[in-house]
């Protein structure tokens, strides 16, 4: 029988994420603390199941399960969930839960649509001590930038609501909820991207003799890094902080998604070791 690897784990964590979306969204809309708490509990359970799925994949394959698109989708959904739970624990950003649960569920659904049926072996280039720290650092960065994307969206909606309620001029003076949080999450994502990029360079040097090869993934990782660098700088300007910078933040996340999953669309994808098939 051809079965998706870790398929049972995938199904139960997907179910738990689905429940987390429903309960936390209902909690956010109705404002009832019971529903919000139920959503949070579902999210914690889903996260544990998701991490369990990842551990199971690693256990069965006998290597770090970060080789294929399918495997990294398990990793990305775990990172999104863990980062959003940390942000809830530290900054009480409950707004993240329904969206993060939805994001993680989307990852697992994408995994389910094109599952791995058997484990692939690691090619020589990936057999390195850098494999785990480089990939995990990047996926935590991507998860932080996902949170930033959601918070920027929430801030833009708050902006719009305030503009309608009070008129744009009055609304612009006071700080907008979630704008600062979106900035902080982007800072986390950016700093983590920087470390991931440097680790990748060190790995490239030991594998190929060069720390930068102008490989498509490297180029797009650099574009992503530059996009957030631009956001962080432009946000310092008074006429950019607020709506414009938030839009730039959200647009930059498109670069993250393209770097992660869009590489197959490029003509030189076949020659790259970075592309998740």
């Amino acid at each position, binding site marked *: 029988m051809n079965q998706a690897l870790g398929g049972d784990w995938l199904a139960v964590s997907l179910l738990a994420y689905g429940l987390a979306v429903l309960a936390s969204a209902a909690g956010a809309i109705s404002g009832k603390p019971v529903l919000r708490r139920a959503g949070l509990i579902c999210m914690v359970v889903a996260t544990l199941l998701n991490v369990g799925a990842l551990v199971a994949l690693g256990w069965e394959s006998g290597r770090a399960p970060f080789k294929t698109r399918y495997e990294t989708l398990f990793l990305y959904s775990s990172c999104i969930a863990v980062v959003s739970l940390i942000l809830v624990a530290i900054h009480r950003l409950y707004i993240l839960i329904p969206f993060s649960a939805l994001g993680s569920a989307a990852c697992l659904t994408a995994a389910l649509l094109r599952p791995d049926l058997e484990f692939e072996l690691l090619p020589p280039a990936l057999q390195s001590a850098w494999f785990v720290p480089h990939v995990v650092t990047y996926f935590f960065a991507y998860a932080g930038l996902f949170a930033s994307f959601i918070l920027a969206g929430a801030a833009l909606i708050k902006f719009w609501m305030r503009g309608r309620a009070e008129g744009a001029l009055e609304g612009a003076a006071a700080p907008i909820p979630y704008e600062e949080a979106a900035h902080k999450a982007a800072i986390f994502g950016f700093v983590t991207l920087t470390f991931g990029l*440097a680790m990748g360079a060190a790995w490239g040097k030991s594998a190929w003799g060069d720390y930068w090869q102008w490989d498509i993934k490297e180029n797009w990782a650099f574009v992503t890094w530059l996009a957030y660098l631009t956001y962080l700088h432009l946000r310092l300007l008074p006429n950019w902080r607020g709506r414009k910078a938030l839009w730039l933040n959200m647009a930059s996340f498109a670069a993250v998604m393209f770097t992660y999953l869009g590489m197959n669309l490029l003509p030189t994808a076949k020659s790259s070791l970075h592309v998740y098939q």
Partner: protein
Amino acid sequence: VVVKVFRTGQEEISSEAVLVANDEMHDEGSSWIDLDDDLILNLEVREEVVKSWRSHISVIRNEQVVATATIAVNEPFSYGGYAFYQSDADEKRPDYSGLSVVRDPGLGIAYAGMLLVCLGATYTLYLRPWLRKEEAGGKESA
């Protein structure tokens, strides 16, 4: 029901039908056997995956071997400012090995630059705001 059985190693296959199919597999890459009215055994030849490429390196100076090493992908060998990398290989030609020899005297500067970018980003975006906050907090309480 279709059962797919993948031939992964050198397992002994004793059934006569499987042996016939096995010959076909070598010619065509795959084969199948009717086991039952609704049961088919599908056999496929899988591409072998290379686990490691290795080359034995000897450094000869004045007709004398001064150093030897085994290099592999991710395991280069350095001697006298030169690094030897296993950069290419061909599974059909085991006597061929692609090596690159790299002299990179500026590498330290490049690494120092990367380290500075990492530390600078951490300082500017985390440490400095935190220090300022501490300072402001200290002033308030004083």
